[in-house]
């Protein structure tokens, strides 16, 4: 079994073109995606630099508070305009990214008044974030108002208390809450710490390119069948499970070699931190490679032609990688797609790598690792049965 496995690893290491695509491509893609999309992951840059053009009633204290205190921040600057026309012109000239038209005396009719947000079609993301900040502010102010009202009613009912100063004190305290920036910036965090773009895409590309071993492993069996070496193996004293087992271990070993080299390369070249517990990283890598190797055997049992396997490698793996979050984090998908993503082994592996990067306990990983081993075993058995029938 081990002789067949070692032969397979040796053959793959001799295939220079295959090596380039399996080792250099993930490193290259990690570098490109990790650098290009790092902004989506760092805590400080979750929103691009944005200028908001606003018209508001300067006599209204809540409007003034939102314009001068709540909205501005490191990435957001606010420019005030006299009227809507001027905001629209500024938007047209791209002097501002988003326009906000607060109605007169907005603070007094916040629950019912309409606020207009003018959007540049190219900057919908900034507009969405400004809208979200606006809604959050309205909700908080309304909550403060309702609470103050309730508080005054309760005080009146008790009697013997000066309602007005007490209510003013409360409103003063709660206005701090209304001004709060909570929820203003959406950060990509997991657990207590956030992962950088480079970390995320290192894990994502590692997972995606390990998945290619499913088609490479299957192709190897079909090639052996085509070249009659599989028949020759079957004529040796070894039984079929030795041969399939050898092919399985070969795929597993190569996947582990690939993963080990990728891990070292991303750490040394891009200073990617895979977390503090390397044993956890290897455990996830091993269980995922195990699942991938099983899938390879199943594919070889189901598919008859090498061309079909190539198609699966070309399209199927890309789709699985996309659904599994290797291109875009799964959190960015609609809920329905996220449900599908949660059923995909590569998503489990990526999720677990990110967990380990942000600090995870073994108990957090056991379920996914067990599921990956079960997938590997199930598909291996299925593949073995199918290949025996063939």
């Amino acid at each position: 079994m081990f002789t067949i496995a070692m032969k397979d690893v040796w053959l793959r290491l001799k295939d220079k073109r295959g090596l380039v695509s399996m080792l250099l491509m993930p490193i290259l893609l990690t570098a490109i995606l990790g650098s290009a999309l790092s902004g989506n992951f760092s805590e400080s840059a979750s929103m691009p630099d944005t200028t908001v053009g606003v018209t508001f009633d300067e006599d209204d204290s809540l409007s003034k508070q939102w314009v001068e205190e709540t909205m501005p921040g490191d990435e957001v600057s606010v420019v005030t305009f006299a009227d809507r026309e001027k905001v629209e012109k500024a938007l047209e000239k791209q002097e501002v990214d988003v326009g906000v038209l607060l109605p007169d005396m907005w603070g007094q009719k916040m629950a019912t008044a309409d606020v207009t947000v003018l959007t540049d079609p190219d900057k919908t993301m900034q507009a969405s974030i400004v809208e979200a900040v606006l809604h959050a502010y309205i909700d908080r102010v309304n909550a403060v108002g309702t609470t103050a009202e309730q508080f005054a009613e309760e005080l009146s009912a008790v009697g013997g208390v000066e309602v007005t100063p007490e209510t003013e004190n409360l409103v003063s305290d709660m206005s701090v809450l209304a001004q709060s920036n909570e929820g203003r910036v959406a950060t990509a965090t997991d657990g207590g710490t956030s992962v950088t773009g480079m970390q995320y895409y290192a894990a994502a590309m590692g997972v995606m390119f390990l998945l290619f071993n499913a088609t490479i492993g299957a192709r190897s069996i079909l090639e052996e069948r085509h070249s009659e070496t599989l028949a020759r193996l079957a004529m040796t004293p070894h039984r079929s499970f030795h041969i399939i087992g050898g092919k399985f271990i070969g795929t597993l070993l190569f996947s582990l070699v690939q993963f080990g080299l990728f891990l070292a390369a991303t750490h040394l070249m891009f200073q990617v931190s895979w977390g503090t517990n390397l044993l956890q990283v290897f455990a996830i890598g091993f269980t995922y490679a195990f699942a991938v190797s099983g899938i390879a055997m199943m594919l070889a049992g189901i598919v008859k032609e090498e061309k079909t396997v190539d198609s699966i490698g070309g399209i199927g793996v890309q789709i699985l990688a996309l659904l599994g979050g290797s291109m875009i984090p799964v959190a960015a998908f609609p809920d329905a797609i996220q449900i599908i993503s949660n059923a995909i082994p590569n998503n489990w592996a990526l999720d677990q790598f990110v967990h380990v990067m942000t600090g995870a306990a073994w108990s957090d990983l056991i379920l996914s690792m067990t599921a990956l081993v079960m997938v590997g075993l199930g598909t291996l058995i299925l593949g073995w049965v199918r290949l025996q029938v063939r």
Partner: protein
Amino acid sequence: MIEVKELKKSYGQKEVVKDVSFKLEKGEAFGLLGPNGAGKSTTIAMICGLVPYDGGGILWGDQPMSPSMKRRVGIVPQEIALYQTMSARENLLFWGRMYGLSRKEAKKRADEVLAIVGLTERGKEAVETFSGGMKRRVNIGAALMHNPELLIMDEPTVGIDPQSRNHILETVKKLNHAGMTMIYTSHYMEEVEFLCDRVGIMDHGEVIASGTHKELCRRLVGGTVIRLELEEANEAGVKALEQLSGVDQVTVQEEQKVYDCFVTSPHEVMSGMMETVVEYGIKVSSMEVQEPNLEAVFLQLTGRTLRD
């Protein structure tokens, strides 16, 4: 040493091997001769355990053949079943290990086998860079790694140049002389005649005749074949040839243009034949007198040549 008894195999309704039986003694070379599709490779595949048989049996001594006995058998498949990107030596080492040799034993034996197949100097080169003949030699070498008691070769010289073919035949002959028992399948009559002590002639899944070369030729009615190739068919002329005294049988091939006349004494028949050719205006493009051989036996038994 090995006995094949009434082996049967069908694919669906088609019976591809029908009650094939033969027996080999230690050190003997047995040839299975027949055209493509005769059932030779299926018979070999069943002996090797690759294809299950529907009936009959295979005995090694007096024991049914088991997977563990495969260690005593070396198999040279019809296809070049090697890893093309690996070197000849790496291939030999791998196949040696698959037959249970230790790493050390395999290394030692690989050098010996490379010498046997005449590839010592090119052992480190990738098989994909070799000519067809050299690949065939490595293909045989892989089967010799574990020094088998029985070597089974399924058309090991298909599609190679005459020089490589001769090298292979000489090598196989030497191995047999050294005591290795072998089963050799081919549709090349000369190879089987050169290598094998006994021959089984197969056609349509059956062994239609078997024996030594001499025994088979003795069965030939009219031992010599006079082959006439005509420029155009001439039915009346051929009928006249068949009627000639001394002509035992006439077979016709290739759109009525090739006639094989089986005769016992070619000298006595020749003058009569010439007269008939002239009398009936038979346009002869070539004439050849063939001594009794297995090709002629096959031709007489089936009405076809081995290469049909």
